[in-house]
């Protein structure tokens, strides 16, 4: 009886030490769920969700402060992926935060109108606008995420939204039309 208690106690202490060691040795830095959520978000950094960028929104979701349906650029696919990751129910996009646009857009600066005020450069979250004070600015199209944050600060309204057109490399085959649900039944003559 005593021997059994002793053995079990020793074992318990041993395993406890082992677990304690493992917990310290293999400690995970940071919150991995935030990275996983951030990987799903589209990284437009548009702030439509109410947070200053995708990562703060990911952190808010992880803390349980924000819902998963606040990201218009991510659209339904993004919500489904987030619901999948977090084991939550899929919800429709909260339209308070904006509408999902099927077609991707970028902005273009009308260079004839630009007065070189640098306000758009300060607004751009991904440094996709080049220019200097009193010099004409321009958008690097490949870097633009289409967040449209540069449009409100522009004092002369010279920034316009243009859709991104497909070229041969980015073109996708259309989904074939779904087949008939029921084969046509031939009427007996």
């Amino acid at each position, binding site marked *: 009886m005593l021997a059994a208690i002793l053995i079990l106690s020793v074992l318990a202490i041993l395993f406890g030490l082992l677990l304690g060691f493992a917990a310290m040795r293999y400690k995970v830095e940071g919150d991995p769920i935030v990275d996983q959520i951030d990987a799903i978000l589209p990284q437009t*950094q548009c702030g439509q969700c109410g947070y200053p960028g995708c990562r703060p929104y990911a952190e808010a979701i992880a803390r349980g402060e924000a819902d998963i349906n606040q990201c218009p650029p991510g659209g339904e696919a993004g919500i489904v992926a987030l619901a999948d990751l977090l084991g939550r129910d899929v919800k429709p996009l909260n339209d308070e935060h904006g509408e999902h646009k099927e077609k991707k857009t970028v902005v273009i600066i009308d260079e004839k109108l630009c007065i070189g005020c640098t306000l758009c450069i300060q607004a751009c*979250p*991904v440094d996709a606008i080049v220019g200097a004070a009193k010099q004409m600015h321009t958008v690097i199209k490949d870097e633009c995420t289409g967040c449209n944050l540069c449009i409100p600060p522009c004092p002369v309204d010279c920034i316009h939204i243009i859709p991104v057109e497909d070229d041969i490399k980015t073109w996708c085959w259309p989904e074939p039309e779904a087949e008939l649900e029921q084969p046509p039944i031939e009427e007996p003559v």
Partner: protein
Amino acid sequence: MKRRLWHFHGGLHLPEHKQASMTKPVVAAALPDEIILPMQQHIGSPAEPVVKVGEHVLKGQRVAKASEYVSAPVHASTSGEVIAIEERGVPHPSGLPLLSIVIKPDGKDEWTELKPVPDYAQLDPSALRNVIRDAGIVGLGGAGFPSFIKLNPGPDNAVDTLILNGAECEPYITCDAMLMQERPRDIIDGLLIMKHALRARHCIIAIEDNKKVALTLLKNSLQEHEAEFLKIVSIPTIYPSGGEKQLIRILTGKEVPSHGLPIDIGVVCHNVATAAAICKVINEGKPLVERYITVTGETLDQPRNLKVRIGTPCIDLLNACGWREDQTDEVLMGGPMMGFGIPALDMPTVKTSNCLLARPKDQPHQQPAMPCIRCGQCAAVCPAQLLPQQMYWYARARDFDKIQAYNLFDCIECGCCAYVCPSRIPLVQYYRFAKTEIWAKERDKEKADHARQRHEFRLQRLERKKKEDEERRRRKKELLKKTQPKPDSEADIKQAAIQAAMDRVKAKRATQKQQKKNIENLNEKQQQAIEAVEKRRQRLRNAGADNEENP
């Protein structure tokens, strides 16, 4: 001795329809009114134009240069004037335009100065590859991968077998068969050049056994000493034996690994037309400016093979073969199994165009598709040993992870599954749809990662700037403190500051009192008036003084 051959899984025996276009010899197609040369006729980055509008170019002159490693230059296919460099429609399922050089032929068809390679055996393989690269040679079997890359085995790979693909397994297409009949020696010479570049040990030319004439002619042009390392092999006619992986399986019994390349198992595979084109480059110095194209179909009066200048509009070739437009449903580029409908017939033929197939109206594939009954015929015929119906379900459900787990990217889009499907489901379209969607998702992901990086960098930069500004302010303050004498206490500093301010105000008022205001820029009249006033004032003062003395 009969060579041992293997089988690949599945495959189909299809009606061949090849005889119609093989009865007449190959003739050169007439010079068109316009030659349109798209900048992308190959896999890789588009070429960059090196000519200007209005420039006169000669046949074989380079008009666009390769932009990157995986790219190919483009050469003028006739002499004439460059009349435009603009976006033009190209034969691609999307129908989207591509930058193209448009040449108005001058009718002389005058060659530029040609530089043949006199003795290629003396040339280093790398120099040989450069010659082939500069000639714009790409795989003429259909994919259009730049050939010089496939002629570079890399430092760690030894090439055991070089296979020349003359199977041409797709129905209707006969351009390779006609090439083998008309220029067998060119093909063998081209193969020897490739062998030199690759340092391959064995060579095989594989031909389906329905091309007896080509087989005999090739065998006849083979010299005795060449027969030691070069075998011409007849393989059974079964679609798609001309698929690269399938052909390698038939000839060697080896499987190219999934996501792998033939070079991984010591094999390199090229098309016979590519070999003939390489022979022309080395022996005659002529870059890739023309190719054989089969123009065939039920709605043509004279289906045949034509020697076509690359860039000739499709409509010119169809008209040359007695095309009955009113009976045609659509014109395919490529064969009936893997071809695609040409969006508009004024589009040019390109380096990879092997066949124009005019389809009559009322084909069975135009009837609506019906639900999948899970008969499994598609899996039985799949030459890549995939499960087409599973992939079909996942493509419909847009479950792209799952469809990749079923090895979607091993699908060669041969069309066997759709051909046998009793419900006429366009299976290959579903796979193409899924493939391009997956690529688009990957591009989006890459773009998002890039944006995240840039955003994080921006945040870091702003943070750093803030810190630097703070640091600068702190230093400035310190500097001020050092230069001023140290006051005793806070109250004293305040008192001193107040005193100093009051002194400043006093001094200012004193100077202001002494100064007379508004005395600049006076004219004579004003000056006189002032003097008069001053005089009166003086008089009054004097009078006042007298009064005080004498009240």
